[in-house]
């Protein structure tokens, strides 16, 4: 058992941190905040693609580097820390993982090399409106090879070339692969809590699409894709939460009130210690998720849900208490604190809100306990 990154993974991570510090400083994130446009930084995305990160976990047979999921987790942690405004999560954690999990050989051969090479941006479109996603009440329909209906919000929906769409069909729910460049696809920007990550409303008006995986299994397949994404997103969340804690600590050291460093007050010390503890809860569960993902362990559904719940809570706490530690400055547009507050909520919602994942987690714990009972 080794519950840590290997030395090679550590140096990959260090290198990624240095690279991102150079190419994706918070000023670059802020530039997208001020001018959201398509909601990412295309030049930065190109540089990240050139690093080969897109193919990190994609098998070599499909043009990837086949390094494995733990390496991808290490990169995710650094991407989260830097707030890099790029469509990495949509393309890699969701679109590519959906292909890996559900695509047939021909689909994988056709698209995964393009993903690995950074030549396409992909996304996953599930949400249709307010409230938890219910696969038994989908309004987007797939009939005779054509998709109709509206998905919103679709993260990176404007920048993406391809989408995998959850739809209802006569056989039940289905994942549908759609080329977004067709005329029967209309897209418009929607503003979100995190303008540094683009989102769109997509109307499908009889758009041609092909089934990914088995028709009728869409919801189950989506849940598996979301488990993979949840682990990877948890690393972005932990990376962001760590950065918030560092910002808060640095400020607590330099800011004075009543003639003392604010970090000398127990109220602030305990606040930062609580953030640290929450981050460790997030990290411990994320690492376990990384192990389960990289080994495709039977515990993956449980570990993924635990990682998502823990990392979402950690990032929320760290991002709001970082603002609190900064006082009035922390509440300004000018200060960077809110970039993290926004991203924390974005990441906390992209594959479903924590309330949904808490339910999944409790159910999966029960299932695992039941399985242990049978084994014993």
């Amino acid at each position, binding site marked *: 058992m080794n519950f840590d990154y290997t030395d090679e993974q550590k140096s990959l991570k260090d290198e990624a941190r240095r690279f991102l510090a150079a190419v994706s400083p918070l000023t670059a994130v802020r530039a997208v905040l001020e001018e959201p446009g398509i909601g990412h930084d295309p030049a930065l995305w190109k540089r990240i693609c050139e690093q080969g990160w897109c193919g990190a976990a994609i098998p070599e047979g499909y043009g990837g580097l086949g390094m494995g999921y733990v390496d991808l987790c290490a990169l995710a942690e650094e991407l989260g820390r830097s707030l890099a405004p790029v469509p990495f999560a949509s393309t890699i954690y969701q679109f590519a993982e959906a292909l890996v999990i559900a695509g047939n050989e021909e689909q994988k051969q056709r698209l995964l090399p393009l993903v690995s090479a950074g030549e396409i941006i992909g996304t996953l479109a*599930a*949400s249709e*409106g*307010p*409230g*938890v*996603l*219910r696969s038994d*009440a989908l309004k987007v329909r797939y009939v005779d090879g054509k998709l109709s209906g509206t998905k*919103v*919000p679709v993260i990176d929906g404007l920048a993406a070339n391809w989408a995998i769409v959850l739809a209802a069909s006569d056989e039940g729910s289905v994942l549908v692969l759609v080329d977004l460049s067709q005329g029967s696809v209309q897209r418009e920007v*929607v*503003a*979100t*809590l*995190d303008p540094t990550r683009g*989102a769109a*409303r997509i109307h499908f008006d009889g758009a041609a699409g092909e089934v990914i995986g088995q028709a009728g299994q869409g919801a189950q397949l989506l849940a598996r894709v979301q488990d993979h994404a949840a682990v990877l997103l948890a690393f972005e969340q932990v990376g962001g939460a760590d950065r918030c804690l560092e910002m808060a600590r640095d400020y607590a050291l*330099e*800011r*004075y*009130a*009543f*003639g*003392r*460093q604010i970090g000398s*007050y127990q*109220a*602030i010390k305990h*606040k930062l210690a609580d953030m640290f503890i929450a981050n460790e809860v997030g990290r411990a569960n994320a690492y376990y998720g990384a192990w389960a993902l990289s080994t495709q362990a039977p515990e993956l559904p449980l570990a993924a849900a635990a990682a998502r719940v823990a990392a979402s809570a950690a990032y*929320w706490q760290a991002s*709001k208490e970082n*603002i*609190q530690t900064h*006082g*009035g400055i*922390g*509440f*300004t*547009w*000018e*200060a960077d*604190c*809110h970039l993290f*507050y926004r991203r924390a*909520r*974005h990441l*906390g*919602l*992209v594959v*479903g*809100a*924590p*309330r*949904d994942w*808490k*339910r999944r987690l409790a159910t999966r714990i029960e299932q695992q306990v039941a399985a242990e009972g049978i084994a014993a």
Partner: protein
Amino acid sequence: MNFDDNPEEAAYRAEVRAWIEGNAPDLSVLTAEERRTWHPAHKEAARQWQVVKADAGYACISWPREWGGSGGTNIQEAIFNQEEARAGVQFTYFMTGLHFLLPALLEHNQDELTLSLIPSAVRGDKIWCQLFSEPSSGSDSAGARCAAVRDGDDWVINGQKVWNSGAQASDYGLLLTRTNPDVPKHKGLTVFWVDMTTPGLEVRPIKMMSGDAELNEVFLTDVRIPDCQRVGEIDGGWAVVISTLMNERAALGSGTGLSWRDVMALARQTPSWEGTVMDDPAFREWFADYYIRTEAVRLTSFRTLSSLSRGEAPGPESSAGKLLWSNSTQDMSSQAVDLLDMSGLLVDAEDAAANGAFQHRFLWAPGLRLGGGTDEILKNVIAERVLGLPGDVRLDKGVPFREIPSGR
């Protein structure tokens, strides 16, 4: 103890409810955008409503007649406020002036000049702002550096203020200055009121994380203020500050903004695994917890009211109300955004549930935990002033102001 109206109160409530129904502005003619605080259309609606109220004697119900009030009771004023809230016509523009600053100003100055400032504020024609915080002294208001130096009958002011709510649209400010840096910090402060158009005074709006720009920096360069605009004693400004801060915490502690009814409406219209979010047992548990906290804020403000009506000043216990309100508001906005799931990310009025009001609250909530006293400061107030625990070891006590360590 009785939370019900007594017969006179009930009669008063019926009277003001009918009056509000007959006279309140119709905000439904405004777009969602225009209905946001500080939108010119919204501000104008608020001003007109203030005039209507002033003409009918409902603008400052509990103020004495000499101040331009109606000489009514605090209970009557509270009843009116509740009915205003019920009718959805409560505005915050005049709160700083009418609830925090002017009562403190009038407590210390009752000369003719001061009294002449009142009618325009009561009618909403003039807006007041609080000029206390500075870059190096927010929580520590007594650490103000903005210097006031006597010059004949005038004072010459140089320095900078920050986080001043509404200063961009204000006509007058209550300004905290340092008049003596050689004595311990609380003993060398003096307060003035200032016309915001005085030469040398420059207001620069600060964009907040919510995207709104209702906080400001205020720069003062050789601003001349006559001594007749001094509030209270020379070097006696701390007493004025304390009066306003207590008023502020009591007012904020009475809670404003989205209520549990709005949350309930959102939950009822949002689908869940079965039925709506309102049917989800986990949500119901959270909602029950939220309800008791926000109701506590409201009910505690009644208790504060009872002590006010006995002629007592709002005490340190009102800090609890402000803490509860700001923290439960942040929690509520977070819950509301989450229960919408991915759609909770949407912010535009056309796209978002409830016109984006919960998302806007979500982005505002961090400020609520800072303005009017931070969480940490208010907890210290409760621990030390209510519970009698010993204070922190102070490095700034008894030390001349200029010798206090200040970092950055």
